[in-house]
Each structure stands twice: as C-alpha cells, then as structure tokens.
C-alpha cells in the first residue's frame, strides 16, 4: 500500500488531503500541522500544548503501521487536548486500523484518495465497544458493548 503523506505536492502547494472525521466525511483543506510528532516521541511539555489555539492541528506520524506507540501517544494527547481539537494520524497507517485510531482519540487521518472507500468500510466493520477509552464525549456516548 502506498504511504500517504501530508507533504507539499510538486507545484509547491499543500497536497490534497483526504481526511476522516468521526463520521467519515471528506475534508480537503485541513491546515498543515502546527505540531508534528512521530511515533516514539514523548508527550510534549504541557506549556507547548497549552500554547496551541483550538484550531491548531496536532499530528502523529506513523513511520510503520505496526508501531503501536502512536496509539498510546494519540491517547495521551487526546487526554490533554480538548475533545474537539484536531488530532491527525499520518504516515504509514492502514484502513484496518481506522476504528482503533478513532477510538484512541484521533479525529482525522491522512490517506491516499484511492483507499477512501476501504477506510469508510473499516470504520463501520466492527463497531462494538468493550472499552471506554476516549475522553471525547462523542466516543464516550457510544454503546459500551
């Protein structure tokens, strides 16, 4: 699978970005991340997070889809950010991780457009909740089981 990236395209503009929200709507103009972290980074200092405005995008870059540290980092970030703060997963992630990413607190993922339908499918493939993880009220209100 192609590695999606939120990088500038060849003519220097920000690449077209396909993004999911909790409901898998496509958004094309999510701003570039203000704070770009990667799997393996530790949590940023509290003052850095506090200095962000509500619309400043925070992103976690997955170098490898199977490196689960990004899920804990996402979870920790969501615990410190407001529930509506844009938190983006980018890098090497696969559609089968859609629900996990959402449930640890990512609000958006950056993907290649051709995989959109598979991502949408994965988001609704298994919707049961055995855990109450996300501090986001939208996730918390889902049925637990």
């Amino acid at each position: 699978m192609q590695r999606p990236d939120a990088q500038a395209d060849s003519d220097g503009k920000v690449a077209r970005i396909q993004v999911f929200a909790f409901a898998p709507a496509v958004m094309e103009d999510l701003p570039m991340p203000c704070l770009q972290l990667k799997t393996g980074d530790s949590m940023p200092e509290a003052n850095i997070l506090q200095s962000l405005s509500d619309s400043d995008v925070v992103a976690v870059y997955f170098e490898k889809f199977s490196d689960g540290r990004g899920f804990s980092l996402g979870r920790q970030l969501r615990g410190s950010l407001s529930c509506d703060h844009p938190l983006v997963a980018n890098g090497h992630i696969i559609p089968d991780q859609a629900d996990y990413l959402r449930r640890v607190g990512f609000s958006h993922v950056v993907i290649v457009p051709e995989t959109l339908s598979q991502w949408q499918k994965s988001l609704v493939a298994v919707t049961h909740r055995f855990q109450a993880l996300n501090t986001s009220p939208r996730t918390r209100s889902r049925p637990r089981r």
Partner: protein
Amino acid sequence: MYKYDTIDRDFLDRRSAQFRDQVARRLSGELSEDEFKPLRLQNGLYLQLHAYMLRVAIPYGVLSSRQLRGLASIARDFDRGFGHFTTRQNIQFNWIKLVETPDILDRLAELDMHAIQTSGNCIRNVTSDPLAGATDDEVENPMVWCEVIRQWSTLHPEFAFLPRKFKIAVSAGAEDRAATGFHDIGLRLVKARSGEVGFRVLVGGGQGRTPRVAQQLTPFLPKKNLLSYLEAILRVYNVAGRRDNIYKVRLKILVEAMGIEAFSDAVNMEWVGIRDSVVELPLEEFERIQRHFARDTLPPADLTSEILEAYCGKGHAFERWMRHNVLPHYDPGYANVCISIKALGRPPGDASASEMERIADLADRYGMGEIRFTYSQNVVIPHVRRDQLIRVFEGLGDIGLNGGENGLIGDMIVCPGLDYCNLANARSLPLADRIFQHFADAGLRDEIGKIRLNISGCINACGHHHAADIGILGVNKKGVENYQISLGGRAGEDAAVGRILGPSFDEHRVPDAVAAIVGLYLHRRKPDETFGDAVVRLGVDVFKRELYAAA
C-alpha cells in the same frame, strides 16, 4: 460460564466478515504480506513448518460440551481429525488452508467462539485456574475477572500493536494453579485483613530465552481499579518497551532495565490520570458478568455411595485413577475429574475428534456439560457426582483415556519440537516417549509421586521447561540434537526458574540421567516430601554431583 448474548454474537459475525474481507484483499494483492501478517495473527492464524495453524481461543480454558463437539467437527472437516490443546488453555489446528479460514471462523462464530488475539503482538487469551469456581480453596471465583479482562482486552484500540505478545493470568486459590509468576501480569486475588478482596499484582514474569519470575508491583489493588491499573501498565509498556531487538521486547526486560521501583513510579504516573475514570468497568456491567458465574445448584449427592465402595479395593486401576485424577470439589459429594491425555506414542496435548466428542458426552452425562482445558494440556470435567465417578472412569476407558495420571512423571508438557516446528533445535516428542518407556512401571511412578517434567525443543521454551521440577531443553551441539537438564523450576505460588545442571546429553542418555536424578530423590527424601521440596532442601548441587558422577 459466560454465555454470549446478541451483542456478543453480532460482534463475532462482523469480525468474521471483516477477516473474510482481509483475506480477499491479501489474495488480490491489495494488502502486502507485511500488512496482512499482524491482521492474520490477531485472528489466530500462523504460518508453520508444513501448513497454516489456527489457534482458537478458549477463554481461560472453559468451554461447553456443545463447543467441544463443534471443535471436534472442525478437526474432522478442516484438519486431519485432531486438535492440539495448548499451555494457554487454547486449542490449535495444525493443518489449515488459508482460503478455508474464513469458513472456520464462521463455524466458530456459530459456537460463540473465535480466534481473536490468540497470537500476534497483543493481549492474549487470559488464563486461569482450571478448577476455578469448583474448588473451596479460592478467595472468590477468578473467572469473573478473567471475563472482565477478556472483554476489556478484546480489540483494545490502544494495545493492538504492542512490542510483543502480552500474557495475563488470574488465580484465586491457596495454590496458584495458573502459573501467575510466569506471566507479563500475574493477578492473585487476595483478601485483606479488613476482609476486602483485591489483587496482588505481579509483573515481568515470563519464560523464553530470558526466564524471569514476576515481581510484585503492588500487594493490594482494589478490585474496582483493575482496568485503569492494567491500562497504565500496558501503556508504560507500549510506550517504553523496546521494539528494536526481538530478544528484548517483552515486559520482563523493561521491568528489569528500569528496576521495579522506577517501573512502578511510571505506572503510577499514568494511573493518576485515569484512576476512577470512565476506563473503569461500570458496576452494572460487572454485575451482569458476575451473574454468569453464580454457582449452579448441584443436585444433592449420595456421600455413602454403595457403587463407589463396591469398586474401591477391587479394581487397582480405578483406585489409582481416583488417587491421581480425581480432584477435590467445594461440595464433598462432588469431584473434578482430570483427564490426562498423555500416553506412550501420542504427542502430548493432541486429542482426536472422537475423543473430544466422548469427553463432551461424559461432561453432559456426569458433569454439568462444562469442560476445562488446563495449563498442563489436560482436560478437566468439573462438578462430577462422586457416586458416578466409576461411570466416568469406565467411559474414559472406552476411549483409552483412563490410564493417564495427572501430575506424575508421565504427565509432561512437551512442545512439538523438530517434528513440527521450524525453530526447533531438537525433537521433543520421541524423547518424551523414551522417558515414558523408562518409567513404564506404574508402581515406580506412584512411588515418585508428584513431579513435573517438561520438554522444550529450543530456548523459546514453549514446553515450559524453566518452570519444571526437571526441565529438558533441546540444544544443537555441533549439528547433533542434545538435551540440557535443569532442576528446581516451579510454576506455583513460590515460582522459580530451574537451574541448568551442566553439560548436555544425547537423546539415548537422557532417560538414564532423569532416572539418576529421581533415584537420588527416592533415596534421600523425607516421608511425604515431594520431589520439588526435596530439591529445595538438598540443593541443586547435590543432584548435579550425583548426575555427573554417574555419567
């Protein structure tokens, strides 16, 4: 036992459909093998030496007779008529075709079963005491907590891609029958002086090439905080566990590198933020799960059974079976029957479809239709009326399964070894047979009494040789299969890693070496002293001298 409701069933159906889709995408090339691998592993599918292997989850080793019959039919229809009981209380099918796995998962879903998280770098099937809920030496029924943990860990979004597999065991008995000291997390239900029940939490245990006994993380964790505390431990591991070196990825290495105090500080820092939060299980949900494990009302049993008395004193085999294979129950009129499926010429842990069906029949007729798989790859039928034990004995005799002795020298845990495993240094199954033959005299086995002898074909230690009174490890000595012997391992309350005695032996000399060790024990033991206790009292060096003086 826990019974699925429509929500659980719907979940399995969806999960099965999801895997069917993943297999199709792999076959079409949409998913690379690298990407497919963790997905298939999290659905229990391994690629082995000769074929795919599917490991099916038996939650904490408990299943119904209907489920066991269903597994038997899967063994017949998709395997070669056999299933293999594992040390994690699961069952494996060793001759599976990839394209058929979605169909098998559908069949499993019909049985309220699945293969989720039986392999892969995630939280594996939680294991427990095979006598849980059927014995009077437990603080409370650990299965309630196993089910809580099973549900919490199933498809846990944060912990599906851990550095490595992660194993949790729960025990509640005075005797630890779940080997909690050899798990990433060992939970022991304990009662405080105040009467409150909680968990003693152990971390960082494990076997493999770096065997470690788990250390105590906290002496008492209130039950209501279990999930947030587990979550804090897992998060510290997920974030800080090594991912760069396959030999250093387990929690035991992290705990050792950090030191138990620093690890505990890190866990507590995570825990502060989530303790008493939405992460904890709501009381209503706990009570819903708990209701599934309420004790059944057992019909009154006849304590002065004429049938039992008529047989005792007459049939030697039955008496021996009563002594070794009938375990106490909380109701004096009942018993738990342990069926040891180890015998000469059969791979330990293997059972045929017809044997599984017969065991299911016996559980229906003489038990409560429930079966347990044990850590030592045996089977327990709980809740059998004592006055019907003779019927069970005879029924097992019909399929040749009333001869195996629970806990004696023939009741070995043995990994598949070089015959089936591509990581092996040496064969383990033929060696088990040699040892069987060497101790063919039942009188001698009785005299030796309780002893655990385990064999692993390589340092990965799937045969749990580190945790055995006598552990045998296959090594490669200049291209020749050899075996190293260790002594003094224990899996129970006072868990210990066995100590290697010295230079290895070839396969012909291993039985004599074992006999020399056992001979010294018989010679030097005190009355009623078990082998394990004698090794502790006398010290491993005494055995080492005896062994190499004779060699």
